[in-house]
């Protein structure tokens, strides 16, 4: 036992001596959360919008005001003719142009119908979709009120959309769980695989092998410090997203932390597996970064829904551990569900951990070959 504690102490010394390791451990997750939370926001705020009002009446003015005062848009310019539309997009500040046809107000009152065009800058498809959706919503809203007091003889079905769990469709709800999932697997797998291959590269593994330390003690000794640090990391990320974005944990905190521990453990054993497959630190870094990061981002359902992918990718994503943890963490954090709804995913993670540990211990060489 003393041996083991001595080994762990040594590992902590390595971590605390190396500022880069510490930075990767704690700096990157915080940076990721803030970057994803602010910069990569999918919400629109103050998007540039221009107006081409060919009618200039009370109703078009009112509608224009409504759009601008919604807070999502900022008026950039007032255009005078169709030919200006292209020009204003080329300047780059304007994401959409709203065009009211001539005699908009008159037509609306006399015929109960008038048309309005929303032209969006399609070179940024995400923004374009968002902008058109937002403006359509505002117009619909206005429409309803206007029609409400105008005539009651036409029957209309008006769907009322309500978003459960995330009423404002805030993208933090998607990014925070995603980033936690991504960061944990990357850091845990990267760190453990690098620290083990480092011993191989510097030749210290030779002496460790000749020592009475058992393989399981070496592996556990390598894993334990990162387990503790990663767990602290989870708490920090959760605290950060609570204070900065006001993102609550709806479900049980205990369950969330327990599931995180499981996921950390799984990632660490994956790291050990990587280290047994690679002889040098470079190889280990390469496998962890390229082999894990891209598939984790693309195939875990973090950004792109798995349901929309071709079947092949769906099967591939089944072996990606992040896929399951994302479901778990979203369920607990956002929906507030309990273990009853996520036991399947939890079980899969447990099996993965067991398999990785089994292979690692078997593949861990008690000799140099």
């Amino acid at each position: 036992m003393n041996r083991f504690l001595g080994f762990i102490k040594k590992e902590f010394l390595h971590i605390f001596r190396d500022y880069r390791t510490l930075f990767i451990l704690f700096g990157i997750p915080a940076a990721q959360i803030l970057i994803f939370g602010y910069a990569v926001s999918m919400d629109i705020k103050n998007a540039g919008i221009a107006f081409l009002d060919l009618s200039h009446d009370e109703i078009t003015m009112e509608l224009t005001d409504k759009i601008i005062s919604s807070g999502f848009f900022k008026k950039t310019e007032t255009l005078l003719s169709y030919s200006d539309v292209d020009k204003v997009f080329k300047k780059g500040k304007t994401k959409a142009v709203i065009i009211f046809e001539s005699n908009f107000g008159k037509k609306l009152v006399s015929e109960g119908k008038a048309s309005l065009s929303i032209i969006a800058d399609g070179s940024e498809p995400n923004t374009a979709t968002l902008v058109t959706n937002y403006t359509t919503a505002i117009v619909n809203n206005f429409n309803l009120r206007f029609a409400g007091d105008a005539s009651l003889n036409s029957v209309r079905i008006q769907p009322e959309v309500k978003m459960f769990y995330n009423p404002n469709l805030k993208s933090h709800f998607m990014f925070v769980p995603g980033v936690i999932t991504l960061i944990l697997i990357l850091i845990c797998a990267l760190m453990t695989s690098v620290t083990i291959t480092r011993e191989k590269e510097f030749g210290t593994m030779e002496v460790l092998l000749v020592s009475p330390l058992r393989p399981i003690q070496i592996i556990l000794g390598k894993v334990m410090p990162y387990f503790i640090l990663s767990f602290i990391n989870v708490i920090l990320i959760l605290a950060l997203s609570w204070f900065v974005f006001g993102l609550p944990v709806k479900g049980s905190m205990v369950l969330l932390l327990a599931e995180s521990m499981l996921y950390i453990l799984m990632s660490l054993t994956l790291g050990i597996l990587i280290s047994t497959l690679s002889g040098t630190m470079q190889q280990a870094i390469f496998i962890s970064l390229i082999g894990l990061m891209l598939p984790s981002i693309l195939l875990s359902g973090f950004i792109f829904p798995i349901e929309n992918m071709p079947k092949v990718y769906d099967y591939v994503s089944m072996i990606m551990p992040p896929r399951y943890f994302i479901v778990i963490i979203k369920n607990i954090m956002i929906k507030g569900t309990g273990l009853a709804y996520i036991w399947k995913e939890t079980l899969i993670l447990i099996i993965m951990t067991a398999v990785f540990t089994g292979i690692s211990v078997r593949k861990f060489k008690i000799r140099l070959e």
Partner: protein
Amino acid sequence: MNNAIESSGLSKSFGSARAIRNISFSVDESEIFGFIGPDGAGKTTLFRIITTLLLPDEGYVKVLGMDSVTDYKKLRKEIGYMPGRFSLYQDLSVEENLSFYATVFGTTVKENYDLISDIYSHIEPFKKRLAGQLSGGMKQKLALSCALIHKPRLLVLDEPTTGVDAISRAEFWTMLGKLRKHNITILVSTPYMDEAMRCDRVALIQKGEILAVDTPRKIMLGFSRKLFSVKATEKYRLITALRQFPATITAYPFGDSVHATFTGDIVDPGLYDHLKNNGVTHVSVNETEAGIEDRFLELMNKTA
């Protein structure tokens, strides 16, 4: 006296490359046994088999009465191993390295301090310094202290003096000599022929095969001819000229002279003229005693 190491017919290949071939030797308890040979001779492979880090393809080695393959767990507790690259943690201090190895081997620095005090006292003033910032000689002393800290019965040192300055090398051998009184068997390898003299017995190893095993004295006496030390102003021209001389058998550079052997073990009077004709001046020829290196080269040529 028991044998500390006894090996028979050890062979090991890596793919198609044969690292060692049919190695048999035995080491007595508490002796300093040296493996002398150039880089790539198979010293490291042999030491890794002895320290249970590699499995032999053929043959066996019994270390301290235990089989290197089946008893590896027990054996690992008794061995102190210092690999060719000093296996130290560069980002840990001198003190931390030592106490880490002590705990890993289930002991404390205090417990076996008397064993390492001779060596460790040299670096103790720098105990707070990171191992990565030590000089080669200090690293070597620290690595030796780390290998000794659990009082092993067998100390295996793989090229401990490579990359270390001459003074540290001499100091190092003095320290090894002092360890003798603690009944520790020492197995050491080196590419430096002059260090062979500090061993009780040596094995000359070349291309994975042992050429000879004996005391350094007897190995030197094994030299079969009379050896002449030839000196002149231009050594390179001297060697070329000597090698062109018909009666020359061998001519190798040795320090600032050339060691040569001649047919009939005599210096042919025609040699001086031959050298003069080749532009070699200030020639002096003296009979000299053969060293380990001379014997090594002789043995090497016989097998080639």
